[in-house]
């Protein structure tokens, strides 16, 4: 024996652990050694650590109950700091060298938990206790009760730090997904693969084989674990098979889609992927998820050392660990006796076999006392089991009690598409019902087939059926030789009269008494029972608790289980970390960032960027000596209006529209007329939704007889394009028109200010003429610049100045901004960002996103007369609804504080002087505000009732959140150049 084995008191011979690979780990600060192939649970048991946690509510000492993902007790926190992973099941956590784990749900020491006083108070803490006790006063709940209860009751806690691990997402496609690698799953996968199907075999365990690794049975003359290894080797050698170990298929979704979580690596500082969230698309699925053993309820059935009988076999056979020195067995079925045989074979002392049945023909291993018709009524041993007390008064010493209350088929995934399991008396369990997910075949123990030879055969049949369903000739494989062990059960759920601290749901501390109380207080349907007692609502989702809980409820109500019904299971089968769902879509990678063509140049120029949707746009360009953003923005505005400014406007949506009927199409989608727009001209277009509200606005230029280019706002680019495609395909399919988004194909710059023409004249090739006569306001056309680059020029203006927008193919975008800046040097050309853009449009009274908020009409914006009444356009009919044409409607106005030193706050509401600032006196609101360096005052735009008639009025702008209540003067929204002489210059 190696020294590592010597230190592990409970390590026995055999099993699938590698004794040549000792692994050091820490639990609650104490150092231990286990072996490769261990779970944290098996390594703890090997080291005789039985107490691993405290229960959720009563803080009772708890040990390891199971050997799988159904574990309710042994939840631990693995890892430290940012790597800390709470509520990890010790029974599934693969041991690795250097693992650190901590117990949870305790105050102070695990062996002396300060909150264990709850256990003494348990008579007060029954079902509904929190609902009844902490309901008054209501205000106390959030601030006082809940934090205290959470602190006292909570499971593990998060680190509060960002998860440093990498997660990924992936898509897999196959003909057949086999879930579970036990005897049925292996057979199904083998025969399907040999029939030529593309097969994925997934199992949550790191060691595949399911119960074959946990049992000492013989198949084809070899040990079951060796048989599993042989099958897996065959599968691994086939090109059409993909084996996913450590992969939990947690949900069955629509149309053959399965969600699976692969735990690829443990925490890894080197950045290896920790977990992958797979979307698996499969034509067929064989569910071979096996069955889950359940306990029997009696007083103090939760002491450390109490374990499910099947789990005891797993620890003995698979891990070479004896869960106790002296084991007692309590069973209601034949399977419990298999545990006795295996323990005996491993040389572990069995102190008694207690079977609740009286009439059975089972022989115990030599020298083991058996008690037929026996029941356990109590146990002793606070921090670890010492003895069990029988109904006949006998005390039987035991440091481990193996319980078998029978096995429940793991039907979870069959329920994910509304399937309801049905009760089967023969196995005393629920089996899959109808309404299975599309293409799912359930086989083996998951389908109520409880013995080995039958499971192997049932798996073969399932795999062959999948092949037939997919029009393949099923391969013929001889069923392996194995025996059918006996599987007789007589339902026995709880020991009558032994109700005190008789637990059903170990994780949520729900006992027989709680179920009785729930029934007594009228919560009698299964769904009510669940919610009132929280039975089955913990992180294990009642994998072992639901059926016993239900059976006890049925017993109390005097109904059969079938009559009582069952709750159904929803995804996920086991918890899935949010990080896995997110994958790489975290932080900056949550969505793509779109950069404008001038981004590189703007970064070098020191621009401050702002997110506008997915885009990063320059907000302003600070210069040396500017410490406040306003200094930069004021300078940019003044410079543009005085000489020339340049702004990247690439982010506006650009839609190329072509076709013989393009004009007719535009006439339908814009509220104003487009039929008569001549070639070489641009027009402002107002787009309504069908409900009559304004959807978007922009300009559309007619570049040719059948060729238009539309711009949309940055924010609505995607939505408008979708809408136009809807109009084109669904409403006017007879029109000859095609659309394509060219937002990213063209870089576009606004060149604005009195010197904009002179700047551009330096760049255009000889022969081009952009004089006011040749290229007047709203002109557009193709133009050759910079010695032969084909550009598009638009004489449009958002700033109110003489202005142009020039578009070049995106690949010239960077060169274009540099060329513009170089040509503009003599004019002091100033790059400006979105803030200056906003200031100038507010000064000019142009509406933008704040005014186009989806609840405003053309009429409110002062654009009512643009809506043509003489053609069919989207939104026309409903824009005439009475409520939208009220005389006292809101109308767009400008505003200035009476005291020009005062700032304005967007979102403030208009209240008459002397009126109290309450909703009924609300007359409108401020939509946009800016500081106008020209007017040397804050200015704003807003909507107020009958605004057009109120220019010159003084009202209050009240902002209760901002603590502001100031007088403002209403005025025309056009603060600068209302006649538009600059535009036309």
């Amino acid at each position, binding site marked *: 024996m190696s020294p590592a084995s010597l230190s592990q008191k409970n390590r026995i011979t055999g099993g699938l652990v590698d004794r040549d690979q000792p692994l050091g780990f820490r639990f609650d600060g104490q150092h231990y050694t286990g072996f490769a192939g261990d779970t944290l649970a098996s390594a703890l048991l090997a080291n005789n650590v039985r107490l691993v946690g405290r229960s959720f509510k009563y803080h009772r000492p708890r040990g390891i109950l199971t050997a799988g993902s159904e574990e309710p007790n042994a939840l631990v926190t693995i890892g430290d700091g940012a790597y800390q992973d709470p509520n990890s099941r010790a029974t599934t956590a693969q041991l690795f060298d250097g693992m650190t784990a901590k117990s949870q749900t305790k105050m102070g020491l695990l062996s002396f938990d300060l909150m264990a006083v709850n256990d003494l108070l348990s008579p007060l803490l029954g079902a509904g206790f929190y609902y009844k006790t902490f309901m008054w006063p209501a205000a106390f709940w959030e601030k006082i009760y809940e934090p205290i209860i959470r602190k006292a009751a909570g499971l593990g806690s998060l680190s509060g730090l960002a998860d440093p691990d990498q997660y990924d997402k992936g898509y897999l496609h196959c003909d057949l997904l086999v879930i579970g690698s036990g005897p049925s799953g292996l057979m199904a996968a083998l025969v399907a693969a040999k029939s030529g199907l593309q097969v994925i075999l997934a199992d949550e365990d790191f060691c595949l084989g399911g119960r074959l690794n946990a049992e000492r049975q013989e198949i084809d003359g070899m040990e079951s674990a060796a048989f599993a290894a042989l099958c897996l080797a065959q599968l691994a050698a086939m090109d059409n098979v993909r084996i996913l170990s450590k992969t939990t298929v947690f949900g069955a979704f*629509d*149309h*053959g*889609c399965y969600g699976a979580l692969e735990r690829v690596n443990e925490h890894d500082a080197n950045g290896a992927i920790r977990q992958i969230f797979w979307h698996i*698309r499969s034509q067929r699925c064989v569910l071979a998820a096996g069955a889950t053993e359940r306990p029997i309820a009696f007083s103090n059935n939760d002491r450390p050392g109490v374990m499910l009988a099947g789990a005891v076999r797993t620890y003995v056979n698979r891990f070479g660990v004896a869960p106790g020195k002296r084991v007692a067995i309590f069973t209601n079925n034949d399977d419990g006796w298999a545990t006795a045989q295996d323990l005996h074979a491993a040389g572990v002392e069995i102190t008694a076999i207690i079977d609740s049945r009286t009439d059975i023909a089972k022989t115990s291993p030599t020298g083991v006392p058996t008690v037929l018709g026996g029941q356990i009524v109590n146990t002793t041993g606070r921090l670890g089991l010492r003895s069990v007390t029988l109904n006949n008064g006998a005390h039987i010493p035991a440091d481990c009690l193996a319980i078998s209350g029978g096995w429940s088929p793991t039907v979870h995934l069959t329920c994910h*598409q*509304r399937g309801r399991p049905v009760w089967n008396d023969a196995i005393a369990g629920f*089996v*899959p019902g*109808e*309404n*299975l997910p*599309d293409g*799912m*075949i*359930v086989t083996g123990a998951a*389908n109520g087939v409880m013995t080995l030879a039958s499971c192997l055969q049932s798996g073969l049949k*399932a795999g062959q*059926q999948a092949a037939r*369903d997919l029009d393949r000739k099923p391969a013929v494989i001889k069923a392996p030789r194995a025996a059918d062990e006996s599987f007789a059960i007589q339902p026995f759920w709880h020991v009558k009269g032994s109700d005190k601290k008789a637990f059903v749901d170990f994780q949520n501390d729900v006992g027989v008494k709680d179920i009785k109380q729930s029934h007594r207080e009228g919560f009698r349907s299964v769904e009510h029972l669940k919610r009132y007692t929280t039975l089955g609502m913990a992180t294990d989702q009642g994998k072992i608790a639901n059926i016993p809980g239900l059976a006890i409820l049925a017993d109390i109500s005097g109904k059969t289980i079938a009559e009582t019904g069952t709750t159904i299971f929803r995804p996920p089968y086991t918890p899935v970390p949010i990080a896995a769902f997110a994958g790489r879509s975290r932080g900056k990678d949550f969505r793509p960032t779109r950069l404008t063509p001038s981004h590189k140049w703007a970064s070098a120029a020191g621009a401050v960027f702002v997110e506008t949707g997915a885009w990063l746009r320059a907000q302003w360009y600070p210069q040396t000596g500017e410490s406040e953003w306003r200094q930069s923005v004021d300078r940019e505005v003044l410079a543009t209006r005085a000489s020339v400014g340049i702004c990247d406007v690439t982010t506006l949506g650009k839609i190329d529209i072509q076709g013989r009927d393009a004009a007719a199409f535009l006439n339908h989608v814009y509220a104003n007329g487009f039929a008569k727009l001549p070639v070489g001209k641009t027009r402002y277009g107002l787009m309504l939704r*069908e*409900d009559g509200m304004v959807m978007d606005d922009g300009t559309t230029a007619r570049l040719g007889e059948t060729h238009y280019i539309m711009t949309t706002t940055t924010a609505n680019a995607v939505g408008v394009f*979708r809408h136009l*495609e*809807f109009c084109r*395909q*669904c*409403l006017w*399919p*007879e029109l000859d028109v095609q659309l394509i988004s060219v937002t990213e194909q063209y870089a576009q710059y606004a060149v604005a200010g009195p010197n904009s023409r002179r700047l551009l004249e330096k760049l255009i090739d000889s022969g081009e003429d952009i004089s006011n006569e040749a290229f007047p306001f709203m002109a557009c056309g193709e133009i050759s610049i910079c010695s032969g680059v084909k550009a598009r020029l638009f004489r449009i203006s958002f700033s109110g100045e003489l202005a142009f927008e020039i578009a070049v193919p995106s690949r010239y975008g960077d060169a274009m901004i540099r060329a513009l800046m170089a040509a503009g040097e003599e004019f002091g050309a100033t790059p400006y960002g979105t803030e200056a853009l906003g200031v100038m449009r507010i000064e000019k009274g142009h509406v933008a996103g704040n005014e186009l908020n989806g609840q405003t009409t053309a009429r409110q914006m002062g654009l009512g007369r643009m809506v043509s009444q003489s053609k*069919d356009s989207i939104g*026309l*009919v*409903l824009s*005439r*609804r009475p409520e939208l044409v009220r005389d006292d409607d809101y109308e767009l106005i400008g505003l200035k504080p009476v005291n020009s030193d005062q700032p304005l706050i967007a979102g403030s509401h208009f209240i008459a002087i002397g009126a109290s600032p309450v909703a009924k006196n609300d007359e409108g609101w401020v939509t946009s505000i800016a500081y106008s360096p020209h007017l040397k005052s804050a200015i704003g735009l807003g909507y107020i009732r009958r605004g057009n008639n109120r220019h010159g009025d003084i009202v209050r702008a009240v902002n209760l959140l901002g603590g502001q209540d100031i007088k403002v003067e209403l005025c025309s929204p056009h603060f600068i150049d209302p006649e538009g002489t600059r535009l036309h210059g």
Partner: protein
Amino acid sequence: MIINHPHLGPRDASEFSILGDASLINRPDWQAGDADDAFYSYLYLRDNPAGLHRELWFHEQGDRSWLVVTRDTVTHAIIDVALASDIAKAATSKMSKVNAGKKTAAKKTATKKTAAKKTAAKKTAAKKTAAKKTAAKKTAAKKTATKRDVT
């Protein structure tokens, strides 16, 4: 969900965005006397069936086709997928025939309109029953499959 695109074959639903009831194709006549009511119904009144529902889906991350998807809202089974433009064209050609009739003789139009409506109604009815039949067949097939699985 998987949507079987008429041009592109089976595509994941995440490539699409949904608009809703396919009746949005049938936009009313803006010049009709009852246009206000018709548009109100068109825009705001929707059926919300538990069962077969014709919906508009946009293949936004694909070829930008608008599709009419007939989907069972209870099981998410997709019974039929068609190009919305084909359906809209069929509807428009019917409409234009009616409009052509309008110009020649008012009386005739009236009869034609009702006739057109009737045929339309008949066709939809026939379609619906057909769809239902296939649906029923499919469920039946499913049921037998399920039974086979269990036994």
